[in-house]
């Protein structure tokens, strides 16, 4: 993953941002909004992952988009503008095609934003956030995240060791393989229990269970985070008001109706655009800053 400046903000910022963006992309079906969140989502994903993102987009996003935009008109026959009839006698309408396209864009952009979320919100940020709410849960999550890779590494070791004595789990007939697999699984349970005794000892030895446990974290909500939070909150409230008072709206059925081109609507498009391109903008500003700094060094 690329060095992403947005990820360096406080987890609260990262998390609220993604919730807002994903929510808005999911529930606002306005074509301009959809266009903005799709392009920005894709752009940020490509920024984060480079070539890999392009591959995911072609292999997953395109088929999903096609599927949803084809399936909707085939099964949904609402809408006024009749284009033609299918062999089965079902009508295909312009509105259902448009809605299918919009839904396709919506799904794909939500997916893109979720992929970005995965890159930015690493496990420790997530644990930090939810540990604030439920302290015991955060330690539990941290321990699970420690245990899972350890467990799977040990399974690999055991099955490799079985190969040393000619007991390869990966070949042979299915029943025999199943039997071997079960044996390994059962010894793994023993292994996990056995080792957890020592982990428990180590926890006790370091005073786990004493009263008044505190939480340590490496994050600090600094002035940069405060500014960002204020900006995000302002944009969020503005958009919420606009949407609630229907300054922006869209109806696909029975016929496509959009809001008028008022100044306020244009302002809302701009604000949403800024909001969606925020992580990229933050990165670009940082890049420019570095370029400038470099010329000074």
């Amino acid at each position, binding site marked *: 993953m690329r060095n992403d400046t947005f990820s360096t903000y406080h987890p609260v910022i990262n998390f609220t941002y993604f919730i807002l963006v994903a929510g808005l992309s999911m529930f606002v079906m306005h074509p301009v909004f959809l266009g903005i969140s799709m392009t920005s989502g894709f752009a940020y994903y490509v920024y984060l992952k480079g070539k890999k993102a392009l591959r995911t987009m072609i292999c997953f996003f395109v088929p999903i988009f096609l599927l949803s935009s084809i399936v909707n008109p085939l099964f949904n026959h609402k809408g006024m503008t009749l284009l033609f009839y299918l062999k089965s006698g079902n009508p295909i309408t312009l509105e259902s095609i448009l809605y299918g396209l919009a839904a396709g864009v919506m799904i794909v952009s939500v997916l893109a934003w979720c992929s970005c979320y995965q890159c930015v919100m690493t496990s420790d940020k997530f644990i930090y956030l939810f540990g604030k709410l439920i302290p015991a849960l955060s330690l539990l999550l941290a321990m699970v995240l420690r245990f899972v890779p350890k467990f799977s590494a040990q399974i690999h070791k*055991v099955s490799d*060791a079985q190969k*040393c004595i*000619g007991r390869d789990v990966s070949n042979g007939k299915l029943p025999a393989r199943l039997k071997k697999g079960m044996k390994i699984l059962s010894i793994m349970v023993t292994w996990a229990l056995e*080792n957890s005794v020592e982990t428990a000892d*180590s*926890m006790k030895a*370091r005073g786990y269970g004493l009263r008044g446990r505190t939480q*340590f974290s490496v994050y600090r909500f600094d002035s940069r985070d405060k500014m960002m939070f204020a900006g995000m909150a302002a944009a969020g409230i503005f958009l919420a008001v606009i949407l609630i008072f229907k300054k922006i709206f869209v109806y696909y059925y029975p016929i496509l109706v959009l809001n008028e081109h008022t100044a306020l609507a244009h302002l809302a498009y701009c604000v949403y655009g800024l909001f969606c391109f925020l992580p990229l903008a933050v990165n670009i500003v940082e890049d420019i800053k570095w370029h400038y700094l470099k010329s000074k060094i």
Partner: protein
Amino acid sequence: MALFEIKNLTFRYPETKFDALNDINLVIEKGEFVVILGKSGCGKSTLIRHLKSTLVPYGKRNGQILYLGQELGEVSARVQAGEIGYVMQSPDNQIVTDKVWHELAFGLENMGYEKKRIRLRVAEMANYFGIQNWFSKNVEELSGGQKQLLNLASIMAMQPKVLILDEPTSQLDPIAAGEFLATIKKINTELGTTIVIVEHRLEEVFPMADKVLALENGKQLCVGTPREVGKKLAGHDLFHAMPSPVKIYNGTGQTGECPLTVRQGRTWLDTYFEPEKEERTKKEDRGRLFKKKQGPFAVEAKEVWFRYDKNLPDVVKDLSMQVRRGELYCMLGGNGTGKTTTLSLLAGLKRAYRGKIFLCEKDIRKIKDKEKFWHFLGMLPQNPQTLFVGNTLEEDLWEMKEGLPFVGKEEFLKRMRMVVEDTEIAHLLKMHPYDLSGGEGQRAALAKVLLLEPEILLLDEPTKGLDGFYKQKLAAIFDRLKSRGVTILMVSHDVEFCASYADTCALFFDGNIVAAEKTKEFFAGNSFYTTAASRMARHLFPEAVTVKDVIETCRKNRRQE
């Protein structure tokens, strides 16, 4: 006032007939470095677990343990958690959380310190232990040595008065172990922290100690300074574990003051012995380059290359080697040089992309799996525990039968009895394989492999974590196997073991074998990569490699006064 005072401590596990600890008396002063030694299962761990209330095993206990003059049981849990630090054997199992920084903070969080204070302490520790570069990493990305250092650091972050360590280096390679022990020494001298350590690597730890306690079957054999204990233990079973200078000192009749380190040993030798007069074997004959040997070879590799992925660097590069039938061949070398990979290539678990491997003069690619693992090849992985899948050792051994459907039950039983006798595990058959100690587990795993009646045995660090006594047992088993014509090829870090028992030693470096020679010539020619005995005596007796050699040569060359 003494930090710890153990008075007449006797302890018995429930439902056992013998005392695990019997009348132990020990005083540990503030700032002392105490080493506890003894064979596996002699009660060392049981003893040090008594020094921390939360870890005291369940059972019947008599006697008294005082911590700073107060009964340990009455010292509050909070004080004990902070002041008595405890580091265990397994680097992996002690780690609780998934991030290095979180692990460092874990104990402090439990103590209820506020964020600012934790931040400072964590920063201090990261600096002292040189952890800052991997501070934000996931723990699973760390090496074993780094993990154990992290465990130590996260305990030191609580600023304990005493640090108790239970075989902390048994799962580390020698270099990581050396670094770890050096850090312990540093903590002791720089911070004045009291150290109580149970350790097999006496070569390093013995000279550091102020006080040594030797245990045998739960009884106190002797206590005293390393020199005193070294003298007293002469002739005892435990003596095999002593550092080479002490062994040599005792073997030559205890003249003068006992040397503990190689440096002291050199001066000591200079004072009492003269250089060997006999002509040395001509150095030119001892070619350091790889020499062609005569067959028949059990294992032969010709210009083998291997890498894990097309885009990754080569792990094994142009490797050629020949192992004669019936010999014990040791591959020595640092970590990550490709030794273990080489073993799996030789076992046919991985395939080389260039070059050829022959086992008993058959191309490895033409040997079918079925033929390979019966009467032919056996391999012991580095961690013997990974080989076990049964609930008892006996069940585990029977499990091997399933892979050998063509062997009759009677025949298998006969075979099993023989193997069990060979590896001396008869008394362990009813135990769960995970309850075996390091040395026992190693032998049990070996037994499992031997049921395949291999002619070629490949071993990956079989002496890792074993004490001197178990190493001897293992060597005896190897001898028996060799006399039956089994070829043993082992990868090892254990210079002392290889020097004493191998027929041929090879130095593995950067993906291939740099030198392979008869053991004696191999070690006599090296200056760093050689035994402690050779390092100590090489300026006087260049041919002597093992402790035994040095003692014998010493006897002949005593200075006449």
